């Protein structure tokens, strides 16, 4: 690879779908929690390696004012060359399954168009963001620029100081047990996104007891 530290960095020409996405982020105004569009999302992948593994499906749900709109959900299955048989039992997506699959690039375009400037929420969201960023990178695009929230971290925050265990790792299953959420449909991207959304609503209401919560309170760690 040729190193060109000194040459003027060429600005890559970004495709229109990314520019539209970026424009929405730039126009973003901070809204009260009640009006903020949150998108809870989850990816099913072939494994846990950012570099070698691939996204098989993306499930996402939008959330405004304590309500999920079922007509504003996102669910795609991605055609991938990489395939690991070991994870099939977990996510249930077959290589040649009957579900209609689309290319990674199409999935990306649809996803960016869907999320716009929403606040992205996920359980251990870092991994899902990383996986999405890898897709962006493979297509020579900058990273996601949305604000993000992690339900694992928020859940810890919602517990009384006395019971907070800084280092404890809460799996989505733990969260379901503690927040009394039915675990049916775990391990599909949409199912996990739905469960995470319910968990997020419950956590949010716990944190917002005084009805004066601001987005920046959530973003601060």
């Amino acid at each position, binding site marked *: 690879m040729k190193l060109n530290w000194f040459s003027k960095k060429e600005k890559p020409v970004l495709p229109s779908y990314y520019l539209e996405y970026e424009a929405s982020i730039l126009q973003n105004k901070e809204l009260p929690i009640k009006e903020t569009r949150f998108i809870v999302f989850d990816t099913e992948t072939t494994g846990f390696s950012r570099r070698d593994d691939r996204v098989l499906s993306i*499930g996402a749900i939008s959330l405004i004012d304590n309500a999920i709109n079922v007509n504003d959900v996102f669910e795609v299955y991605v055609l991938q060359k990489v395939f690991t048989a070991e994870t099939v039992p977990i996510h249930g997506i077959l290589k040649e399954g009957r579900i209609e699959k689309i290319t990674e690039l199409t999935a990306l375009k649809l996803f960016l168009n869907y999320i716009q400037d929403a606040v992205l929420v996920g359980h251990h969201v870092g991994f899902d963001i990383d996986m999405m960023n890898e897709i962006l990178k493979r297509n020579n695009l900058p990273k996601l620029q949305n604000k993000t929230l992690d339900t694992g971290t928020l859940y810890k925050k919602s517990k009384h100081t006395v019971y907070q265990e800084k280092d404890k790792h809460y799996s989505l299953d733990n969260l379901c047990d503690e927040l009394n959420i039915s675990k049916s*449909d775990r391990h*599909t991207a949409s199912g996990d996104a739905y469960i995470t959304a319910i968990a997020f609503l419950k956590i949010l209401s716990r944190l917002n007891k005084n009805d004066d919560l601001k987005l920046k309170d959530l973003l601060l760690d």
Partner: protein
Amino acid sequence: MKNSIAERVSDFLKNYPPFNLLTNKKILEISTEVKVIYLEKGKVLFNQNDKIHKYFYIVRNGGISLSKKSENDKTLIDICDGGDIFGLRPLISKENYLLDATANEESIVFGIPIEVFEAVSEKNLKINKYLITSFASKSFDPYTNEQSSNVFTDYIEKNNLVDSNLNSVKYTKKPLSCTVKWTVKEAAIKMSNRKIGCIIVVNDACYPIGIITNSDLKNKIATGLFSIDTSVQEIMSTPVITQSKNLTILDAQLQMIKHKVGHLCITTDGTSNSKLIGILTNHDVLASLGNNPTVILKEIKRAKKTKEIRKIRNKANLLLKSYLEQNIPLSHISKIISEINDSVTIRIIELSLKKMDSPPPVKFSWLAIGSQGRKEQLLYTDQDNALIFEDTDAADYLKTKKYFLKLASHITKSLHKVGYEYCPAEMMASNPEWCMSLSEWKNKFNDWIINVDDKAILLSSIFFDYNTVYGEVNLAKELSKSIFETLNERTLIYTFLGKEAIASPSPLGFFKQFLVENNGDRKDSFNIKKRALMPLINAARLLILSKNVSEINNTSQRFEKLAELEPQNKELYQSCAYAFKALLKFKTKQGILNNDSGKIILLESLTKEEKLKLKRCFKPIREIQELLSNRFNLKNIR
């Protein structure tokens, strides 16, 4: 794009009415547009007087309480749980909400967008009927808890019902009409002559343009607002709601509820721009629906033979069926059915007296005891009755007793022919032990109360619920007086009655599972009479006796009276009254469905929601048993 969330929503919705009446494809169409709302305990979904939402709601998890605010009071109307729908007002009328909807516990609620729902369900009659009954029973009588008997809305599909509701209504042809030139006085004279409660104002082409009803005359004329010489135009209600003649009963009800009117004008093409050909009143709609109780009562009174009475009594069963299907409040139903039952007995006694060689030597009264005495008998049950006759000289006693025993055996035999089974324990007036003089009765009760034992309790618990059906009311009153005098001296009987009342533990078991009767062929069946109704009946009787209140025999009325007497326990007593009515209705429906008394319910025949709703009725049973246990010190006895 695939939408797994919508599929999940539809998997839920398809189990519940009215959605279960739609095809899966249509349910999915609705599900795609659903809004999932999370509510913490105490959070409000809508307030009374709020503008109506674009959604109506179904509870996914948790419970939503509906309540009505008045100046300084808040009355709980209903608690909706899993699968219950609420917030139907926007579907029916465009007014603001009349109730508060608040999360009673942490809840998830699905908002069903009305526009989508209406488009998908089109004009499905069954759905409309379900929604109307749910709506009407929740909001039209907000001042009582009567709507609670709506707990068991008839979502069970019944073809005959649908048929009858699809029949065209019988409207009144040749309605009374007048033109705008008439004065109110002229119109009123015509109404009065024809003994009709309304007159239609028509134009020259005979198109209906307005209506004057009795209430217009009351509100606008009798109050002095308008003089009787005013033109009818001044006071008529306008415009009128018009319909075409092949209107179904269901549509007629729908129109009346929607427009809040009691009269529909029938015109040749159904619009107000065509000739008036008839009028349909609220009364016509009711009359079109099944039988009419007034007619049945008249027929019973005129019957000359037991056989005739049997036929008429069977009509009452049809009436009962249609009442249950229409979701008419249970207390109204039981009043009417009790009235019919009583008049059957009265007519039979009259006919039996004719069979005797001579009139009764002394005054007597015929008592209904047990469920008929409590006016809770809806289906045919066993006969439980007794006879009191006036005290006589010792010399005449035997002869007198013989006379009444003979009379009683005529009566019980006839009742049996009509369809009331003989009481297996022979608690009938034809049994010498249940056919006695007033003093004998007094002694018997005193004996039960003073030398109380389990057998005495069983017997007295039936007899405490007596009600005079025929004959001399004062005999029964005197007996009651004597009973209460003895009761006040002896309180041990309360302990025994209390023991009886808590003997069957509340069916709401520790694991919230149903306690089922687990012996033999009763396996997996639930005895709703023994487990749910009797504990409430026993509790009400004991409490009302301990308050020295006589003459209220009906269990739900007893609880309502208790709520009045003990404001601190008002809520519990009211919920007992409500649970009792709901359970009795449930038992009656089961009985009609299986053609038996309905007291044994097969658990597998219940849907999940029915189980849920039954469980809700069990809560007050547990609470009332706790109250009895504390109040009458029963802890050590159990």
